[in-house]
């Protein structure tokens, strides 16, 4: 089995302090492995997005320990966490969060620029990533000129720019219609299976289920289920995972 790249060990996260304190995560232990697409399911307020943010070094655990590639994140400076995020993580957001003033290829190229790619490589690399996501005709389009599915694919291209180890996606299909959502789910699955990324998807969308290798359910900040996909005989059309 591949060694996990992100490990949470009895992680608790509390917002605020005193009487207004709110505990969003309660002693969560989880290991996220490369080549695997993990689906985080749970009702609103269950802590899914908070969990994603802790995995993505955007929030620090109040207690417990988060590790990346075997190294503890405890005590690391904000700058170090930011650097870690830049080098090893890619993010996909529900509302795409593209830069509206930039063309599709420029949106992707910004991520490459951040990661220090030579300036003369920005355009060809961005174009290649967009081509891979089926957007070869839309490289010059602004976000306002694209459909929701196209925008999300640009966002995915931006997320995978620089070949991150982990892709964290927050409700990536929530704003997409059925066919488009399925297409995005397939792309995310490919990133795990073909590129070897560890893909973690927070979603309410049942269309994501058939593409997940593993389903983790949360409720009130506690993991209530952690079900691997059956190794064989899996029915993508099925709604339940035995």
């Amino acid at each position, binding site marked *: 089995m591949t060694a996990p790249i992100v490990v949470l060990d009895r992680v608790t996260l509390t917002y605020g302090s005193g009487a207004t304190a709110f505990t969003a995560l309660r002693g969560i232990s989880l290991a996220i492995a490369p080549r695997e697409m993990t689906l985080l399911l749970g009702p609103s307020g269950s802590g899914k997005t908070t969990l994603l943010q802790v995995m993505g070094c955007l929030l620090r655990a109040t207690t417990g320990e988060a590790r990346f590639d075997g190294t503890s994140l405890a005590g690391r400076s904000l700058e170090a966490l930011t650097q870690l*995020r830049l080098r090893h993580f890619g993010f996909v957001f529900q509302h795409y*969060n593209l*830069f509206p003033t930039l063309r599709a290829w420029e949106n992707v190229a910004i991520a490459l620029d951040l990661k220090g790619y030579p300036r003369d490589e920005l355009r060809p690399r961005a174009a290649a990533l967009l081509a891979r996501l089926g957007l070869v005709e839309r490289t010059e389009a602004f976000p306002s000129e694209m459909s929701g599915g196209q925008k999300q694919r640009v966002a995915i291209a931006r997320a995978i720019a620089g070949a991150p180890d982990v892709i964290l996606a927050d409700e990536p299909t929530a704003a997409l219609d059925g066919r488009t959502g399925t297409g995005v789910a397939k792309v995310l699955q490919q990133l795990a299976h073909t590129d070897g990324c560890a893909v973690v998807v927070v979603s309410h969308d049942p269309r994501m289920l058939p593409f997940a290798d593993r389903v983790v359910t949360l409720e009130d900040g506690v993991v209530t289920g952690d079900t691997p996909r059956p190794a064989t005989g899996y029915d993508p059309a099925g709604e339940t995972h035995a």
Partner: protein
Amino acid sequence: MSFRLEPPLPGTTLLAWRNLAHDRARFAVTLVGVLFSVVLMGAQMGLLVGFAQTASGLVDAAGADLWITPVGTTNVDIAASLAERRRHQALAVPGVARADPYMVQFAFWRKPGGGTESVIMVGYELVSGRGGPWRLDGVSPDALKVDDAVIIDRLYADKLGVRASGDTVEINNRRARVVGFTDGIRTFTQSPYVFATHTNAQHFTLVDADRTTYVLVDVADGHDSETVRAALAARLDDVEVWHARDFARQTQTYWLVTTGAGGALLLAASLGLVVGIVIVGQTLYATTVDRLPEYATLRAMGAPNTYLYTVILKQAAIAAVLGFTLGALAVLVLGLGSTRSNIALATPFWLIALLGALTAAMCALGAIVSIRRVMRIDPTSVFA
């Protein structure tokens, strides 16, 4: 005709440019704000420099090394008189190569068509030419050899009621004849300079033949001017001896400070700076607030603080460069336009460079509020 500026490859420069240019109306307001500030600062400082240059024009143009003045003299335009023997005493001091009398004296000018104006009679030694009219407009200084000859500047011809060379007027009730013009010799006091030979100036101003206003000294080669100045000051009673640059600065300070003109112009220039900071700050801040989700996204993606600050500072720099270019052009045009008026707006290179530095500082200060806002941004806010 369409005009389009395209920025370079993606990065902070592209983001900065697109952030600014995306909302064209706001971008235009930003540029107009910077332009207005640059013009306001440039015009006020240009007037200040112009006034200063005008005030000390006689001293600067005379080209003497040292000025011997009546004790207590505060500026070149107003002074008591000196006995001309001071000139001979000066010539006896080692290191003095030349000493010329120089007359600067207020007088009344009666216009040919009636009416009186105040003028400043400037009398110099025709032989040496020291302190004589410069920027002569097609006339030889030798034209002043005639007993009643004077030269005035074209800028003040209308004011003095003179239409052409050859017109006759009265100075302190003595007949004078305009034999030529200079072009662009202004006066801070608005009493025009009227050039004549030293002897004729004594005649027009009713000053005794053995009196003058100043003695202009040239220091001999190989002699230290400060040593000569000190020697003159020690040897001559009831006079002050100045290095020309010091007397010029004293004259500028006197007129700009005592009239309040310097303070008023500096205040207006400062207001231009403040207006610019506010306008740039406000528009940059509005742009930043509009783009907060994008800055949060960049932060979530792992952009370091310096990347975000660079975007904002480049926005400020773009506004500064474009606004300054337009503003500096406008100031230069104003400067050119002022050459035909009796108000000097000077635009030396160092002033334009100073304007550029002030504009850069103004835009950088305007960016501080935006940078502080971006510093507080929460990258988790993108997970809405």
